[in-house]
């Protein structure tokens, strides 16, 4: 989805705030939220992709103003509610207040049926495809050309796995893009490597 989470290259943002001697967790509920998410994953109720997509599906105003662990909590709670393990009403009663969840998922995507392999050193193009559902091709490479620098082993295609659908195993390619090809005002001598499932790539024209 072309969502609020797809932040790469957005230039609304200011300085990066760095906390010195930062603890792993700042508050007790943070590891708890994360552990409860992995609990459902351990039960094979969902994949990591589904957690990611549940987070992306958050109401955009909520996403923008939530911390990382609040986003994680919201995604995971939404998955439990969507699965029917617990209801939003029950959660609100237990929490003693509003319990905002993620918006509903739309349809997932299938990987390309035909295998089209690419070689290291080959110039490829990120497809010009728009996905409504979970997508791990950041918008900033769509339709852009880059060069394969490495081929990673097959993993389940995220566009399906993010929706709990059976997912084709596909290699992912580390594709190097020249930053100036991605943004005309990008800095010199800088490149970006994006790790893309085969279905997100096509032969360069």
């Amino acid at each position, binding site marked *: 989805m072309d969502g609020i989470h797809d932040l790469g290259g957005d230039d609304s*943002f200011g300085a990066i705030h760095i906390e010195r001697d930062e603890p792993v967790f700042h508050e007790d509920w943070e590891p708890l939220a994360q552990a409860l998410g992995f609990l459902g994953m351990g039960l094979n109720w969902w994949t990591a992709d589904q957690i990611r997509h549940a987070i992306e599906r958050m109401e955009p105003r909520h996403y923008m103003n939530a911390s990382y662990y609040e986003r994680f909590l919201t995604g995971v709670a939404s998955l439990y509610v969507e699965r029917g393990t617990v209801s939003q009403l029950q959660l609100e009663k237990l929490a003693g207040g*509003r319990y905002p969840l993620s918006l509903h998922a739309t349809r997932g995507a299938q990987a390309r049926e035909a295998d089209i392999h690419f070689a290291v050193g080959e110039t490829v193009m990120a497809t010009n495809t728009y996905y409504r559902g979970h997508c791990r091709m950041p918008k900033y490479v769509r339709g852009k050309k880059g060069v394969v620098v490495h081929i990673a082993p097959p993993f389940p295609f995220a566009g399906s796995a993010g929706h709990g659908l059976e997912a084709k195993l596909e290699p992912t390619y580390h594709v190097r893009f020249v930053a100036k090809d991605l943004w005309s005002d990008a800095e010199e001598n800088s490149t970006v490597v994006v*790790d*893309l499932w085969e279905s997100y790539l096509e032969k360069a024209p």
Partner: protein
Amino acid sequence: MADRQPTSSPASRANRTRALEIALSDENLIPENYVEKYTQIAEHEWDAKNGAMVVAEAWVDPDFHERLRTNATAACAELGFPGPQGEYIVALENTPTLHNVIVCTLCSCTAWPVLGLPPDWYKSFEYRARVVRESRTVLREMGLYLPDEIEIRVWDTTAETRYMVLPCRPKGTEGWAKEALAQLITQDVLIGVALPVI
């Protein structure tokens, strides 16, 4: 949602988390000590010190260095660092003309077993949005000045590969013990927003 303020604030994040815990507990879904174990692992086992030992080992042992370059997952496991978000690790080797830096623009993926859970700044919208488009500026703001001749290569963690940066061994560390070398490698160095300083 209308263009108006919501009528009430949500329950606190802590309360919302506890509410989910209670609901799942009531269904007997949470094994004993499940959360405590997770917290223990996240706080202590996933640690940038692991990545530091990997880098130090690679600096002193050319054979390990080669194994790390060709199969970082196995090389890290060899030192005792397998685990979730580390199923396929790739070590990014810096050279005198290439500097690597890691981000996850779409969420905040990181190689937990060797880098530890990422810091807040890594998960911030600011870092996610900016480092791909203006890496040199962002690194400078973070205190890392790189000459224009050095290519900055930003690795966006968009699929299942998890990265760690393998920095150049600093001059003046000849003959140092592994443990001393590992001290030079912080989480920032493994992400690529800092260099080892002696």
